[in-house]
């Protein structure tokens, strides 16, 4: 028997697979396809203090082996999420990770604080890296001092473990990771989307109404693997890896690079069953590659 369970701060995962934030809503839709209790965890769509309507449409477009999105953090606001969405997800035997975002440090604090009394939320994912919001987002995610300050502020008000989600759009990912680790982060999420653009030839304007969007999908996997690998060598907090995962072998690649768990984003759109399929395939892939457990594989791409 291959042991796929893994213990991370705040998260007792039965397996290391979770849908990535923003690619799974609050789980309702995918619960039509399968029992969400199968998942290691669910990363909810970003929560901000108040309801946000997000960017104008078009908000998504396809690229080679990937896609661009500029949703703009649309969400019903943290209080509605806590009242209406968390209870739905909490019916399932899975961990819940709340992705939190804001335009100011204070907004991050208030959103984080709002989850304190929500026992069914196991951890926070601090989204300082959304490329699609003008205030906040990018600046927080690309300046290591500001990233550290937000992390520290959230840690102070929150009673949950905090995973900081880093932006890949930086010169030095290790510096960012070390800064938020020093600021008290319990874990890291790597990576958010790369900022990209596509121009629509017939209209001669960017396809996305927001002009730029976040590039996700298999196209970015090599960048994600590189960042997880580099960061793993410089931090001691666990990493949730993501970026282009669509198979159990992709998951193993992330584990070898140093991730302790793996999120699946864009691939849900292509195949709504991708998470349970990966969960079913993972033990065999681990076994074929000589591992007895998920734990066993973590960081094994770094040699001895």
């Amino acid at each position, binding site marked *: 028997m291959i042991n796929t369970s893994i213990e991370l701060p705040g998260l007792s995962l039965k397996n290391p697979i979770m849908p990535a934030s*923003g690619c799974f809503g609050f789980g309702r*839709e995918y619960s039509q396809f399968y029992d969400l209790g199968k998942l290691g965890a669910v990363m909810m769509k970003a929560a901000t203090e108040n309801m946000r309507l997000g960017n104008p449409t078009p908000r998504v477009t*396809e690229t080679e082996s990937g896609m661009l999105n500029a*949703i703009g953090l649309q969400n019903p606001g943290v209080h509605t999420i806590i009242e209406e969405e968390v209870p739905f997800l909490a019916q399932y035997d899975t961990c819940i990770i709340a992705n939190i975002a804001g335009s100011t440090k204070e907004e991050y604090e208030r959103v984080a604080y709002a989850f304190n009394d929500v026992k069914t939320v196991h951890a926070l994912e601090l989204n300082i890296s959304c490329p699609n919001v003008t205030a906040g987002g990018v600046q927080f995610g690309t300046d290591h001092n500001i990233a550290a300050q937000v992390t520290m502020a959230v840690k102070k008000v929150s009673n949950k473990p905090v995973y900081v989600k880093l932006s890949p759009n930086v010169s030095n990912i290790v510096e960012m990771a070390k800064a938020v680790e020093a600021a008290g982060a319990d874990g890291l999420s790597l990576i958010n989307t790369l900022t990209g653009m596509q121009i629509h030839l017939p209209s001669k304007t960017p396809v996305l109404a927001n002009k730029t969007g976040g590039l996700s999908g298999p196209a970015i996997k090599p960048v994600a693997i590189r960042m997880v690998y580099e960061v793993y060598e410089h931090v001691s907090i666990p990493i949730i890896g993501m970026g282009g995962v669509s198979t159990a072998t992709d998951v193993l690649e992330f584990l070898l690079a140093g991730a302790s768990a793996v999120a699946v984003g864009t691939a849900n759109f292509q195949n709504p069953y991708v998470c349970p399929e990966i969960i079913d395939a993972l033990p065999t892939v681990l076994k074929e590659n000589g591992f007895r457990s998920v734990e066993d594989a973590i960081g094994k791409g770094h040699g001895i």
Partner: protein
Amino acid sequence: MRKEPLRIQQKHQIAKDTIEMVLQNNRVSKCAKPGQFIHLSVNGHTLRRPISIADVNKQAGTVTLLFKVVGKGTSALANLHVDEVIDGIGPIGNGFPIDRMQDSTVLLIGGGIGVPPLYYLGKELSKQGCQITAVLGFQSLNYVFYEEQFRQLGETVIVTEDGSYGLKGLVTAALPDKKQVDVFCTCGPVPMLKAVTSNLQGVPGYISMEERMGCGVGACFACIVPSNNEIGYKKICKDGPVFAVGEVIL
């Protein structure tokens, strides 16, 4: 909702760049409602393509899709062969509320690739005793399709932008008098939907909308349309693609 294998039973080109595909899948054919769509996977493509259900044969267990080849995805679909299997999620969405239209006089207004869902709708409405009038707009003669099929449902006016067939101009030029219409159903590009709804102001109507989609099931917030409801928006894939006039802000 499930992912379903749809086996291609027939494939025909029915107009310029326009393909008719008859797909075999019992479950989808059994539960498909007019206005719903199927989210089709295309090999080598990240995102699925939403295509409306244009007709259903419950006995044969088939659904018919009509689509225009406009880009890489639709041209890959058009190149598939009979007996190949397409992976589709569906039927998705809220269709036209046909129960509410029993025995009424219904005007169908379709523009280009907005025409397909109206055919299945028209057939079902006919069965319910509705009287159908259809106004269908196309770019030009080469693009006209399903004229005969619509004629069998009721009076049908064809409009082409360049006047190469039927009336010249836009569908709005060919709309009948409001008073003769109990309810209208329309599908096409947003400017057409706007023009049609303003022309038919006061008449109850339903519009079917399009937007670029990610998930196609309501999870990703890609296909939002502003609304006057308390949350300020609707999801086209999940709440639509059909909305009552006034439900969304065009």
